[in-house]
């Protein structure tokens, strides 16, 4: 190996482990010196090449990828969650609305009942005593505690498949019809109605709903309050 080739080889790779090169170094002190110098230079270059890496760089590299993969995971999950939530919402809403639309409006139904019945009950001219009325009302576990005035009619009737007490009483301005209807989940007794020349108001008391139907000038409100005060349920 001539001088030039020797230098070329070591310059190209100061850590060369070629046997020929190593032997040449061992044989020649001058070459040894050259080798040492070159090694030193290489060490310096190595040190000089060690650029300082920013402290947070490794975290940046890891966080960025973690966030990216989490982000894609999270969007998928939140879409699923949003879809589940909206389905639940729609189901809940439609169930509530369906249920409400199916509730029987007692005050409306009572007007229809009176109207349909015509004069059958309204034209009755009997006079029921409090005991007689209470005897019927006892079937629902209730009773009136005070005199009701003139009761022209009192009998059971079928109020949309629910057995109820139908009475016709003397109100302030003429006769009013009164229904006492045992509670039912499908009933809605929290409103009033008017139509076909009648108006009605419904109220829930303990044990039953009371609906008062009168002609348009009748004070059904007052009658309703009176009855509410007078009725008692044992259960």
């Amino acid at each position, binding site marked *: 190996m001539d001088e030039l080739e020797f230098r*070329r*080889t070591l*310059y*190209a*790779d*100061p850590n060369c482990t070629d046997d020929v090169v190593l032997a040449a170094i061992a044989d020649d002190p001058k070459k040894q010196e050259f080798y040492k110098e*070159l090694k030193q*230079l*290489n060490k*310096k*270059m*190595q*040190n*000089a*090449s*060690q*650029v*300082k*890496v*920013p402290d947070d*760089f*490794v975290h*940046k*590299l*890891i966080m*960025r*990828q*973690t966030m*990216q*993969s989490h982000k894609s*995971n999270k969007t998928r999950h939140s879409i699923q969650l949003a879809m589940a939530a909206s389905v639940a919402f729609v189901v809940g809403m439609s169930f509530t609305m369906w249920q409400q639309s199916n509730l029987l409006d007692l005050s409306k139904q009572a007007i229809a009942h009176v109207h349909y019945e015509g004069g059958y009950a309204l034209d009755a001219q009997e006079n029921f005593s409090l005991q007689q009325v209470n005897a019927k009302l006892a079937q629902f576990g209730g009773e009136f505690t005070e005199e009701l005035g003139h009761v022209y009619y009192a009998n059971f009737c079928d109020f949309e498949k629910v057995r109820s007490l139908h009475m016709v009483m003397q109100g302030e301005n003429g006769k009013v019809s009164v229904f006492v209807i045992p509670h039912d989940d499908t009933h809605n007794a929290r409103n009033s109605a008017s139509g076909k020349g009648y108006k009605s108001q419904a109220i829930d008391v303990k044990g039953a709903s009371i609906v008062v139907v009168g002609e348009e000038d009748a004070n059904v409100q007052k009658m309703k309050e009176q009855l509410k005060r007078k009725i008692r349920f044992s259960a």
Partner: protein
Amino acid sequence: MFSRKKNSQASVSSDMANKQKRYEVLVLALHNDIFRYACWLVKNKTVAEDIVQETFLRAWKSLDSLKDEKAAKSWLITILRRENARRFERKRFDLVDIDDVSVIDDQLSNEVEIEHRELRAIMASLSEEYREPLMLQIIFGYSGDEIAQQLNLNKNTVMTRLFRARNQVKEALDKTNDNWGRTNG
């Protein structure tokens, strides 16, 4: 139906955890050298940071294609070089050319610092075809064969370039030393 779905999801997330683990090991083991190499490649620390981030992002995305962890280093270098080339495609006129590498800071003693700064300036002033194989050798301890493979060059070419690179460094050093001697004497 639901339980099967759950199982497959569980295995997906455990795959995910594995991938995450692999990635973190890769970053911890190699980010220093990759970053340093990038610095010498582009001669600008900020650009180097960007490129290395892009490199690791791509590495993350295609981590499944890395079958052998031993090949990770050269795999990352390949990605890095591609990212660097991409940078030139994107910004043809925005070439960074900082020869003094003044962005490189250190807290060494003054004398050593001066010597290092000098050496850095010289190494940075080498043309890319000399600088790149030299840095692969110095930073990653690559052999001539490995450099040839990485840069897709003939080994003789690589050895010649390495020789010329060191020769230029040596000459430049001797020159500055002469100058020092002259100005001081």
